[in-house]
Each structure stands twice: as C-alpha cells, then as structure tokens.
C-alpha cells in the first residue's frame, strides 16, 4: 500500500565522498501530491540528496524508490522524475516551445503533437503565445515558468526543484512563491523543493525537512517546525529566535526553572535531558514577548531598554537590550499603542513559560540573536 500513497521513499540513503559524508542515513516518505521542502544551510547535503533522486549521483548505500519502483540502476533519462535546475538550464539554442517539447520529442511524441502539448502547457503556466520566443527574450520570472513547464509537460511522478528562485530579485521571489504554490495545487504533482531560505520553505510547503550535516533534524509541517522545534538547530534555523544560555535549577513534568547566565530566573518548557543542573539554551520567539503586560500573573518578567526600531510594516520588531547588554528582538504589537516610541525607553517584558523552549546546550554560540543568518 505504501506504493500507492508515497511518491518518493528513501531508505537509509547515504552518500560519501571519500571521508566526507554528504548524506547520512536518511529515510523519508513523501506522500503523493504534496509540496515537500528540504531546508538547510548550504553544504548540508540537500543538493546531493536531490541529485541522487534525479539519478546524477549514485548512492553509497540505501535505496530510492519512486511510486514503489526501485531506482537502483535506472539512468536519469529513464527516471519518472524531472529536475528544475538552480540556474534553470534552459536551452539557449532552442525556442521556448522547443525547450518544452524537448522531453516529449525524446519520448517519441510526434512533432506536431508535442508542439500542441507544449503550447497547452505554456498556457497553463501563464505564458500563452510565447512558443516562438527565444530564451534570451524572456524575463527572469518567465524563464522560471518555462523551466517548470518543460518538466511538467512530461507529467513526472515527482518534480524536483533545486533552489530555482535563488537568482530572482526579492519582489519577484515573493510573487513566485505564491505562484509556485498555486501551480502545484493546480497540477497536483508531487514537488520536492530544496532551499536554504526558510521563508520559501514555510510559505509553500505542506511538509518540510530541516537538514543539517547530512541528516534530517526534523520533518514536519511548517507550523510544527516553527512552534515545536525538535532540536536547537531547528529552533535557530527556522524563524527568528532569541536565545539565552543558562543552568537548570529544577525540572518537573516537562517544565524547568532555569537561571540564565545574566541572573534571570525563568520558567520554560524543557526538552529531553534538561534535568536539574544541566547547561541549557533557552529559545524564545520575538512574538512571544509582551510589552508592559497588564496581567503579569504566571508570566516570566524582566526589563529591557529600547535600542532601535526595526520597522517592516506588519513584521516590525524592536531591538532591545537588557541591563546586562543582552540584545533581544521583540515583535512590535500592531495595536498602535506603541506608535511613538523613542530609543532609550524602558519596558517590562513578560512571556508565558510555555512559549520558551530549553534544549541541552549543543555548543552553538547563543550569546546573541539567532535566526536567518544561522
């Protein structure tokens, strides 16, 4: 039955280059018709994983199966997967229609029929009548769509996308995220999308795997990754987080009391291994902190001073600093109470103990702000 519900299954997939383990014992099932992202910093092994699925790299061990069919010894040109390359790799010597018809022609589809199907596909991706244009005449976003159309016309079981938005400018990238998501919903093909940009992964995906050093740290929905990170790496890599280093004073029922190195005593959720006396890192989202809360019962409280306002519309944040010089990001509430803030103003900050998560210290530097640049 697995074959019917999962388009792609990896079992203990490993790839070594000499001593270096690029992909380390990864197992994964991607359900049919889902938008699945693999998110990780550059060098984490996500591209190698993708190239193994496409067939350009041979796994050192483990198996890849697509719709239940084992892919060992199946050449890239015979796999029911197609890859949208990072730089798109459109053929400059051909027209748009020839690019899209390329795969059909290779399958022996007659010239006029493949042309018709290419035109139909162009219409689906919103480029009707573009068939006779040269690749050089297209804008970045149009090329994007041609590259995807070129794969989709082959009706692959799985479409692989290797950071295809990376080369676009910010505005277009935001727009393409939405378009890609809509397109995937429309065609229903399983997308496997790799990226180092957590916002792309969170916005588009049904499920996301966070990858680090050749392994999956966590696989889950965007909400799960954001709200319940399973590892400190996920906590740091997905979304913005404030971090403290500290020591657990007592622990009970998944809740810990810790003393940060600056001397604050907080209650927070404790993950596995956070027993009394252990060194931990505490992660707290910027939106979990409330400024000058009226009802302070059951909240962890401390004071900060405003250093700067990072205005970004609905996503505006305040850069604050504690008495001890620890910088913290706090989300600016959207209720206009704080419209006229001046740097230097002091706040009381309160947060619910269930919003903070403690992980056993993993060696990463948690003195400052963590997040996008991790």
């Amino acid at each position, binding site marked *: 039955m697995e074959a019917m519900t999962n388009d792609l299954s990896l079992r203990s997939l490993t790839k070594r280059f000499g001593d270096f383990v690029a992909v380390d014992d990864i197992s994964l099932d991607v359900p049919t018709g889902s938008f699945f992202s693999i998110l990780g910093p550059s060098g984490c092994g996500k591209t190698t994983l993708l190239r193994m699925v*496409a*067939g*350009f790299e041979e796994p050192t061990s483990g198996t890849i199966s697509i719709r239940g069919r084992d892919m060992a010894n199946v*050449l*890239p*040109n*015979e796999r029911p997967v*197609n*890859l949208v*390359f*990072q*730089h798109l*790799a*459109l*053929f400059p*010597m051909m027209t748009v229609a020839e690019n899209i018809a*390329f*795969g059909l022609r*290779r*399958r022996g589809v007659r010239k006029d029929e493949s042309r018709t199907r290419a035109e139909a596909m162009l219409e689906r991706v919103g480029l009707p009548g573009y068939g006779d244009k040269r690749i050089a005449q297209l804008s970045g976003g149009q090329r994007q769509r041609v590259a995807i159309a*070129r*794969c989709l016309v*082959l009706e692959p079981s799985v479409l692989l996308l290797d950071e295809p938005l990376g080369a676009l400018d910010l505005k277009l990238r935001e727009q393409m995220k939405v378009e890609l998501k809509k397109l995937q919903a429309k065609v229903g093909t399983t997308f496997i999308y790799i990226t180092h940009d957590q916002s792309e992964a969170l916005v588009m995906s049904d499920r996301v795997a966070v990858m680090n050093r050749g392994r999956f740290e966590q696989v889950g929905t965007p909400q799960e990754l954001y709200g319940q990170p399973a590892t400190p790496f996920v906590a740091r890599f997905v979304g913005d987080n404030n971090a403290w280093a500290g020591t657990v004073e007592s622990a009970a029922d998944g809740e810990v009391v810790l003393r940060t190195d600056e001397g604050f005593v907080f209650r927070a959720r404790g993950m596995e291994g956070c027993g009394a006396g252990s060194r931990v890192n505490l992660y707290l989202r910027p939106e979990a902190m409330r400024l000058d809360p009226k009802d302070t019962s059951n909240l962890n409280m401390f004071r900060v001073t405003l250093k700067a306002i990072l205005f970004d519309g609905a996503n505006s944040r305040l850069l604050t600093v504690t008495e001890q010089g620890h910088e913290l990001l706090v989300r600016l509430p959207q209720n206009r109470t704080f419209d006229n803030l001046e740097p230097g103003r002091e706040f009381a900050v309160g947060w619910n103990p269930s919003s903070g998560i403690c992980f056993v210290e993993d060696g990463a530097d948690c003195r400052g702000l963590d997040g996008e640049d991790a």
Partner: protein
Amino acid sequence: MSASGMKQSRLAFWLFLAPVLGWLLLLIVLPHLDMLYMSLRSGSFSHPGWTLTNYQAFFEEPIYWLTFARTAGYAVITTAITLVLGLPVAFYIAKVVRPGLSGALMVLLLLPFWVSELVRVYGWMILLRESGVINFFLLRLGIIDTPIEMLYNDATMIMGLVYTSMLFMVVPLVSVMESLDDSLVEAAYDLGASRLCIWRTIIIPHSKPGITSGCIVVFMLSLGNYLTPNLMGGKNSLWFTEQIYNQFIASFNWNQGSAFGFLLLALSSVIVWAGLKLTRQKLGEVAS
C-alpha cells in the same frame, strides 16, 4: 566627445591599423595581384600577351580538375574525420578532466608542433614503414608473418593529415565547449535524452561556431598541405599543391602555376562558402 578628441581617436585608429593594412597589402594583396597578372599572360616567351588559356587548361585537361576534385574530396574527408575525433577529445579536455589536467592535455596536443612538419612526417614513416617500428613489434609478437607496408596509400595519408590537423580542430572546440553550462547537458539527460541525443541537440549546436572555424582551418590546411600527401601518400596521391609546384618548378610554366594557384584560392573559397550556406552560418558569427 569633443570634435578634436574624435579626430585624435580616428588618427590613432588609422595609426594602429596602418601596419596591419601594410602587411596585408605587401604580403597578401600584391603577390596575389602579381599572380593574377601572371596567370593571365601567355606562357610562351616568344608570344607574350593576354590569354585565358591557363584557366582553360584546368577545365579542359581532366588530369588537372580531377586532381583538384580528388584533393578537395580528401580534404573534406580529412576534415570530417578530424571533427569526429576532435569532438570527444575536446569534450574530454573541456568538461571531464579537472582544470589542471586539461592544461597538460592541451600541451600534449601541442607537443607534436614543436618539431617541423617534415620531421613529424618522417617520424610517421619510421613507425609505419615495412622495416619500421610497428612491423617490428607485430613480427616479434607473432601477429604477422611477413611485414606489411603501411605507407604509400590513401588511408595512411589521411591519417597523417588528420594528425597534422588535430590541434587546429581541438583548440576552437575546447574553447566553445568550455562555455557550455554543464547543467544544460544534465538537463537534457534529465528530460530523457540519450547520450547521442545530447550530442546532437545540445553539445553540437552549442559548439557550432567552434566546429565551423575548426573545419574551415582544417580544410584549408589539408587542401594546402604539400609534404604529407607527397611523402606519406606515395605513389597514388597527386595533391593539387604538388601540381602547382610541378608547374612552377618542374615545367617552368609559372603562368600555368599561377592560374592553378588562383583556382585553388577561388575554388576552396567557394567550397567554404557552400559549407557555410549548407549549415546556415555566417563567417562573421564564426569568427566572433
């Protein structure tokens, strides 16, 4: 730009161009004009005058135009073989080996050109002759009982020409292939293309300018070669250049020789032009 600046830059342009133009005029245009003049003069000292008989002789005497046709045909075959061998070699150098090694491979290709063509051809002769190195080993290994004469036939001559031309094919091919994005090849592979199909649809179309310039150079070099056909082709291979040499040196008929020289220039230009037309290319695109 001001008017005087414009004038100055134009002056500089002509100053830089002058040596080139002078060189072209002195070494290319003038000798050819002289040759054209000579080719239109009567060969006989006693009856000087203008005449077309030298050109007429080419078309009326089968031995002359047949030799030209044969020479051109073999030059085309040489070019085709050089291309077929050069493509994978160039691809290997440009795309497969790591950059350091590709430099070394280019040097290896260049190495034969550090000795003169004459020495290279004699090298081949030492290898291939009946009492030569290859026969020696074949006999020693018991593969053959009696030595084989591998020289003095058309196949050997073409091999010699291909060897001499290889570099001139591979260098332009390597430089165009280096500009080929690897992901294009992978994309074609991913979209279902076979190896052969990738060559046909991606690599060769991309390499077209290099292929054309390589082919023109190799064709012209083979057509104009003298030593290799003469020494390795042996008894059957009258090459058109040899005929020109014979007219000038053996028959003292400079007028006829000039006419042949001019015909070689004209006919080879026509062949190159036809080749460009057939593949729908322009010379300017190739050169750029």
